[in-house]
C-alpha cells in the first residue's frame, strides 16, 4: 500500500497529545489503595491507541515503548498488580516520555534514546518483579467456570476509507490472536472486477471466530483506532451477556470470564461502532464537536469584522438618506444589522473555551513540585468551566504557572513548619475562576506563610529599589515583588529564585489589558487575583468628540455622562479641577489637554463622562457624545507600538480609524501631570 500516510500525522499527534492529557489526568486521580477500574481503563485505552497509531505510522520507538507500558497497565487492569506510589510515579514518567517522543517525532528531531530506554527498562523491571501470588481479591479467579469456552463471533466490515485512515486489518488480527485462538474468514463478495478495483479502498470484509478467555472490552479495544472507519459486530457465545436492549445506558460488562478484573464500564453495544458511541466512550465534552484549525476561525472573525464595518457603513448611509429611501430598504438594513450582530456574537462564542484547558495542567505540576520540595499540597480547583476567549486563554497559562510555582515555593511551608504553626501539615492551594462584570477573575491563593514585608523591604533596599529612608504602605511593599529581578527565596532553586518571574507575570497580564492584585496576611497566606477581559476582540464603545477627532470610550468603564454646568467645576489648591458627583469630588481630566488636540469648546461647556479605571474615578471632559456602537478592536502594536492612553484602534463605518481610550492609562497620565 503506497498511500501517503504523512497527511494523517497532524491528526495523530493532536489526538495523541490530547489522549496523553487525559491519561495524565486519570493517573493523578488514581487512588493508590483502591484504584478506580474505569480510570485504569482510560489509561490503558490511551496507551493502546497510541501504540496502534504509532505502529501504523512506523514510529517504532513509540510503539515499542507503549507496548511495554501497555503490558504493565494490563497487569494493573487485571488486578494482578497493585498500584503503588512507585508505579504511579513510573506511569507519570512514561506520560512525559511519550510526550517527548511524540514531540521529537513531530518536529522530526532525534529521540533521546537513552532516556526512553531507561524508562522502558524501569517499566519492564516493575513487571518482572510482580508478586507471583495474586493479590487477595483475585482469589475468586479459580471459581470461573472453565467448562464452556467462550467464543466470540466478530464481523468486521470496513468502510471504503478504512485504508486511507491508516488502518491495517493484519495488525488487528495479530492483536486478536493474542487474546485467544483466532479463525479468520475473508468475505470477497464485494470485490469488484480487477479493472474497476480501487487499490486504496477496502472491498473486503471479514468474519472472525475468537475462542478464549477474553472480554468484550478488550476485543473492542483492538478496533479502537478504526472507530468510524468500519462496522464491528461482536457476539458472544457461552457468555452470560446482557441483552442488546440494555445497550443504551453504560453498564458494567458481563461478569468476569477469566480475568478477575474489576468489570470495565464499557457499554455492551453489539451494534456497529457509530460515531456517537465512540463519544460516549471517550468522554462527555466532545458531544458533537468538530476539530477546526484556529486560522480558519481567525479568518472567519476577520471577515465578520469587515462585514460589521460594511454593515455600519450601509446603516449610516441609510440614516443620511432617510427621506428618500423606500421603507423596504430601511427594513432590510435593520434586519441586516440584527443578523450581522448575531453572526458576530456566534463567531465570538466559537472562540470561547473553558478555563479548564489551562487549569488541567496544574494537578500534575503541583504534585511534582510538592514532591520535589518536600511539601504537602492540596490543590483545589473551582470555576474551571468559566469560559473565555482562546487568545486570552493561551496567554494566561504562563502567568498562572509562575504564580502557582511561587505559591508552592515561597508561600506554602514545609509540613513540620506548618505543624509548628498549628496548621494542618498539608497546605492548600486554590485556583478559582469566575466572571466579574465584563471581566474574568482568576485567583491563586494559598494558606501559607504569606508575604514577609520585612524581608521584602530589606531585599529592596539591598537592591536599591527603594531608598534607605523610604517608608512604604503594605500595598507599596507588596508591589515591590513585581519589580524586575526581585526574589526573596533564600536559595536559588530550579523552581524559582532566579528573579525572573513576577515582573513577567505583571507585564503579561498588563499586555492582555488586565490587572493583578495581591493581598496577604502574615501566617495566613497570600492571594493573587488576575482580572482579565473576556475577549480581546470586541468592545462596546461610546464615541466622543474632541475638536475634530473622535475617540471610543469602552462602555464598561463609563459610570455616567452629564452636561457640564456653569460653576460646577472647582479647583483644589489652584491646580486640580474637581466636580461634585454623587456626593463625591471627582478629578476632571480635560481630554484635549491630555492628548494635545484643539478643543472646539475651549472647555467652557461640554460633557463630563464619569469613568472608572484601575479602581479610580475621573471625569473626562469632552466636546460631545456621538453614538454608541460595538467596535472590533484592532491592535496598534502590530505596525506601530504601544501608545499611552490608547488601548487600540477601530475602523468606523466610514472607513476611518478611531482610537480606543485606555482609561487607567489616561488617569495615570493625568495624575502624573497634576503632580508634576
Amino acid at each position: 500500500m503506497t498511500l501517503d500516510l504523512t497527511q494523517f500525522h497532524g491528526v495523530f499527534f493532536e489526538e495523541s497529545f490530547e489522549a496523553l492529557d487525559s491519561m495524565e489526568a486519570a493517573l493523578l486521580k488514581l487512588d493508590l489503595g483502591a484504584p478506580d477500574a474505569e480510570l485504569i481503563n482510560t489509561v490503558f485505552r490511551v496507551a493502546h491507541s497510541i501504540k496502534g497509531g504509532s505502529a501504523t505510522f512506523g514510529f517504532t520507538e513509540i510503539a515499542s515503548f507503549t507496548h511495554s507500558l501497555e503490558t504493565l497497565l494490563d497487569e494493573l487492569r487485571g488486578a494482578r498488580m497493585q498500584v503503588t506510589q512507585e508505579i504511579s510515579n513510573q506511569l507519570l514518567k512514561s506520560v512525559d516520555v511519550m510526550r517527548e517522543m511524540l514531540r521529537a517525532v513531530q518536529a522530526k528531531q532525534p529521540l533521546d534514546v537513552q532516556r526512553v530506554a531507561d524508562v522502558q527498562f524501569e517499566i519492564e523491571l516493575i513487571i518482572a518483579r510482580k508478586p507471583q501470588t495474586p493479590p487477595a481479591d483475585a482469589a475468586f479467579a479459580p471459581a470461573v467456570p472453565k467448562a464452556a469456552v467462550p467464543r466470540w463471533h466478530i464481523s468486521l466490515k470496513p468502510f471504503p476509507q478504512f485504508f486511507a485512515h491508516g488502518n491495517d486489518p493484519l495488525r488487528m488480527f495479530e492483536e486478536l490472536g493474542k487474546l485467544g485462538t483466532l479463525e479468520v474468514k475473508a468475505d470477497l463478495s464485494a470485490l469488484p472486477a480487477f479493472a474497476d478495483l480501487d487499490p486504496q479502498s477496502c472491498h473486503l470484509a471479514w468474519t472472525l471466530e475468537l475462542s478464549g478467555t477474553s472480554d468484550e472490552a478488550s476485543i473492542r479495544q483492538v478496533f479502537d483506532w478504526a472507530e468510524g472507519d468500519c462496522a464491528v459486530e461482536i457476539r458472544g457465545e457461552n457468555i452470560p451477556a446482557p441483552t442488546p436492549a440494555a445497550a443504551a445506558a453504560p453498564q458494567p460488562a458481563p461478569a468476569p470470564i477469566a480475568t478477575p478484573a474489576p468489570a470495565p464500564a464499557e457499554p455492551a453495544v453489539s451494534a456497529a461502532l457509530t460515531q456517537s458511541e465512540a463519544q460516549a466512550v471517550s468522554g462527555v465534552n466532545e458531544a458533537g464537536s468538530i476539530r477546526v484549525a484556529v486560522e480558519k476561525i481567525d479568518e472567519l472573525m476577520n471577515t465578520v469584522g469587515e462585514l460589521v464595518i460594511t454593515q455600519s457603513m450601509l446603516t449610516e448611509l441609510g440614516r443620511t438618506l432617510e427621506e428618500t429611501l423606500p421603507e423596504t430598504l430601511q427594513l432590510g438594513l435593520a434586519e441586516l444589522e440584527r443578523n450581522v450582530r448575531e453572526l458576530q456574537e456566534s463567531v465570538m462564542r466559537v472562540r470561547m473555551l473553558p478555563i479548564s484547558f489551562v487549569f488541567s495542567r496544574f494537578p500534575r505540576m503541583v504534585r511534582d513540585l510538592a514532591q520535589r520540595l518536600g511539601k504537602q499540597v492540596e490543590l483545589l480547583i473551582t470555576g474551571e468551566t468559566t469560559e473565555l476567549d482562546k487568545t486570552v486563554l493561551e496567554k494566561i497559562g504562563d502567568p498562572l504557572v509562575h504564580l502557582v510555582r511561587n505559591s508552592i515555593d515561597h508561600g506554602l511551608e514545609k509540613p513540620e513548619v506548618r505543624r509548628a504553626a498549628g496548621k494542618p501539615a498539608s497546605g492548600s492551594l486554590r485556583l478559582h475562576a469566575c466572571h466579574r462584570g465584563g471581566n474574568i477573575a482568576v485567583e491563586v491563593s494559598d494558606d501559607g506563610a504569606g508575604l514577609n514585608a520585612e524581608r521584602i523591604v530589606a531585599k529592596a533596599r539591598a537592591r536599591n529599589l527603594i531608598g534607605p529612608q523610604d517608608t512604604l504602605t503594605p500595598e507599596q511593599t507588596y508591589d515591590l515583588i513585581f519589580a524586575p529581578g526581585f526574589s526573596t527565596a533564600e536559595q536559588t532553586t530550579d523552581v524559582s529564585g532566579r528573579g525572573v518571574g513576577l515582573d513577567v507575570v505583571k507585564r503579561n497580564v498588563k499586555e492582555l489589558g488586565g490587572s493583578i492584585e495581591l493581598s496577604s496576611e502574615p501566617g495566613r497566606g497570600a492571594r493573587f487575583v488576575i482580572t482579565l477581559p473576556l475577549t480581546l476582540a470586541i468592545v462596546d464603545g461610546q464615541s466622543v468628540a474632541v475638536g475634530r477627532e473622535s475617540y471610543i470610550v469602552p462602555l464598561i468603564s463609563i459610570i455616567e455622562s452629564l452636561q457640564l454646568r456653569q460653576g460646577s467645576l472647582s479647583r483644589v489648591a489652584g491646580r486640580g479641577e474637581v466636580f461634585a458627583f454623587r456626593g463625591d469630588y471627582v478629578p476632571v481630566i480635560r481630554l484635549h489637554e491630555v492628548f494635545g488636540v484643539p478643543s472646539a469648546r475651549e472647555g467652557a461647556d461640554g460633557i463630563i463622562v464619569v469613568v472608572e479605571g484601575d479602581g479610580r474615578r475621573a471625569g473626562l471632559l469632552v466636546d460631545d457624545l456621538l453614538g454608541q456602537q460595538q467596535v472590533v478592536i484592532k491592535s496598534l502594536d502590530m505596525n506601530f507600538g504601544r501608545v499611552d492612553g490608547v488601548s487600540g484602534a477601530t475602523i468606523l463605518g466610514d472607513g476611518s480609524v478611531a482610537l480606543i481610550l485606555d482609561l487607567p492609562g489616561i488617569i495615570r497620565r493625568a495624575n502624573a501631570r497634576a503632580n508634576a
Partner: protein
Amino acid sequence: MSEAAHELKPGVEQFLTFALGGEEYGVNILRVQGIQGWDRCTAIPNTPPYVLGVINLRGAIVPIVDLRRRFGLPAAEFGPTTVVIVVKVARQRQERTLGLVVDAVSEVCNVQPEDCKPPPDFGASVETGFVQGLVTVNERMVILLDIDKLVSEGLLGALPGA
C-alpha cells in the same frame, strides 16, 4: 523605466525612487506594498510630529510617517502628487507595515551592486545610519534607504513602547 523591462542580471536590485524636498530617494521595490493618494488620517496623541497618524489599510491599522519632517526638511503643503508609499519593514523579527508620505514617486531603477557607493562620513552632524548607499541615476544622485534601519534607528525607535 526602459531597463526595468529587461531580464534582470543576478545581484541587480530594483528601487522605487521618490522626490522629497528636491532630493531623490529610493527604497527596495520588494518592500513596497503599494502606493496610494494622501488622505486624512487619525492623529495619535503624544507621538513625535513626524508621525501623522494611522489609516485603515484594508482592515489593518497602519501608521503614516511624514518623511520630510522625519528628515528635518522644510514642511510642504500636501498637493495632488503627494502620495503614501506603503512599505513592509522587519523590526525585531517582526514584520510591520508603514506608510511613508513623500512629495511624488518618480520611477523604478535598476541598481548594480558595484554602482552603490557608501555614504560619505558627515560625522555626527548628519544621520546616515539608514542610508544604504548612493547611486547615480540619469546623472542625478539617489539616496537608497535601508528601511529596516530607518525604523530601528530612530523612526519608530523613538516611539513609546517600541
